[in-house]
């Protein structure tokens, strides 16, 4: 199978920070807002280099979303960032009315998404944010898989006119996508071609899917691996082409199986090409405290869980 090398573990939030640094230098309309989490969002360099284009709003996320909407009036491109929980559920109506319904060019940038936030526990581990955001008309939803892709996505969304939800995480994970890979919103990436099963993954679960595919190859199973960094708009054509070839699908995400990538894939398959599908996702539950690895093991979100799901779905072909 196609070989991918970890260039050295990094956190995806640092990819966001690196993207912001570059945008600060290249796009004078980009402004940043943060709700008392500068260090966690890794935007120190942007702030140091562009102090007049940074707005510290304090622990007041609702006001941050409204201010971001207002800053677009006059041509600014606001990147409003905080933890995913506080960037979505806490401020859903502000996003809905002042940003999405009003069609404002705001980039909602959300770190510490999912279980891999770790020890802080379920109050901070949102597993519902993809669902919340993808249901908003006009909202683009992106969940990149590693440092390089998060940096590229951050830069790319500044060029996209319209509201975007960019989701990333806290822990250091494998950084394996090419440094200069262009990020195309809505375009799935084929990571490994296979013939027996399609693994469609997003975010941190993409690397785990590659590990699973390697293990499956040793068992004589050929797994196609697709990186869906954009959950909305979804690359229907890529999903359908692969499902037609392999005849079964596993979806993998760090999110509730209700409302996540898996359900979006089900809609595409159910409408055009009914195909057996297994979900690697949390099962309508809250998280808890623990290390990221422990949590991903307990809640069935790692390479072993993906491998098991593949073996299950193959029996349903």
């Amino acid at each position, binding site marked *: 199978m196609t070989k991918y090398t970890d260039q050295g573990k990094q956190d995806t939030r640092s990819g966001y920070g690196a993207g912001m640094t570059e945008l600060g230098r290249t796009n004078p309309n980009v*402004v940043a807002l943060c709700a008392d989490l500068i260090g966690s969002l890794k935007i120190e360099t942007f702030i140091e280099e562009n102090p*007049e*284009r940074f*707005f510290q*709003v*304090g622990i*007041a996320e*609702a*006001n*941050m*979303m*409204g*201010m*971001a*909407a*207002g*800053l*677009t*009036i*006059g*041509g*600014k491109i*606001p990147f409003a960032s905080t933890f995913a929980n506080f960037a979505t559920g806490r401020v859903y*109506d*502000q996003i*809905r*009315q*002042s940003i999405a*319904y*009003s*069609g*404002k060019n705001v980039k909602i940038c959300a770190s510490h998404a999912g279980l891999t936030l770790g020890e802080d526990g379920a109050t901070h581990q949102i597993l519902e944010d993809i669902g919340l955001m993808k249901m908003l008309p006009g909202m683009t939803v992106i969940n990149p898989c590693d440092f390089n892709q998060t940096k590229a996505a951050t830069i790319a969304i500044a060029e996209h006119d319209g509201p975007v939800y960019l989701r990333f995480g806290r822990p250091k994970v494998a950084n394996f996508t090419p440094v200069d890979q262009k990020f195309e919103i809505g375009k799935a990436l084929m990571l490994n071609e296979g013939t027996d099963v399609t693994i469609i993954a997003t975010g941190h679960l993409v690397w785990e899917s590659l590990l699973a595919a390697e293990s499956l190859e040793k068992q004589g199973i050929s797994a196609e691996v697709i990186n869906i960094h954009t959950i909305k708009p979804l690359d229907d054509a890529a999903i359908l082409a692969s499902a037609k070839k392999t005849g079964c699908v596993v979806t993998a995400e760090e999110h509730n199986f209700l409302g996540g990538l898996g359900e979006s894939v089900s809609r595409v398959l159910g409408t055009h090409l009914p195909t057996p599908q297994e979900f690697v996702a949390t099962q309508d539950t809250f998280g808890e405290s623990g290390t990221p690895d422990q949590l991903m093991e307990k809640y069935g979100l790692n390479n072993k869980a993906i491998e098991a799901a593949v073996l299950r779905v193959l029996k349903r072909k």
Partner: protein
Amino acid sequence: MPNTQELQDLVTQVRRDILRMVHKVNSGHPGGSLGCTEFFVALYNEIMDLKEGFDMDGIGEDLFFLSNGHISPVFYSVLARRGYFPIDELNTFRLLDSRLQGHPTTHEGLPGVRVASGSLGQGMSVAIGAALAKKLNGDDHLVYSLHGDGELQEGQNWEAIMYAAGNKVDNLIATVDRNGQQIDGSTEDVLPLGDVAEKFKVFGWDVMEIENGNDLEQVIAGLKEAKTRTGKGKPVCIVMTTEMGNGVDFMMHTHAWHGKAPNDEQLATALAQNPETLGDY
């Protein structure tokens, strides 16, 4: 600039528009709209520096944000009569396929509206953002906003009020419509607001009052005074006392007409108290 009589005629005509709009569709919010008519007429025809036409960014002109979006009838009437869109379009208020939604929105591209409002408590944050964009753009025009008093019960306002003072957003004039009424009754019965002016003061705003927000000359003088207070390191708040339902005797001194339309007979009585001045749509 129009003279005071011309503006007073416009006030009366806008009141007729409000009443006829809500009557036609038997829904909408006449009470707060009638109470803020002088404010809107003054703001759009005497106070704000406006460009011809409409573009979303509004660079090089003053901006206005309506936070309490349910008083859309007065907003639409004043925008139409200021030339933002055809006056006849007031006929489409709250109808299917209309740009004049029950609550204002940018979604249908209605000129003059820069953000959706209706879900309360969000407008001040948006106005602050727009005011900051003006500062970044080196644009010395002002941002105005209007808020219901009951709306101040929403917590987001206090995040915004704290931010604007703490960060010296001094190109912003936020007016609170202190009519003392909300859907379920008097604001002081539903959830007491207490001394609104004092609250803004202790948060660090420059606060002034318009004692009678239904006296056109007082409103104009108050808004002119507020303009002179901008650019001095503090956001400016006007606490403007109004009478919900002003201009229609049976709609005043009650919260009953917050969100209720008059029937045929009531409309006739109300219109008789506000004779046609500039021509009905």
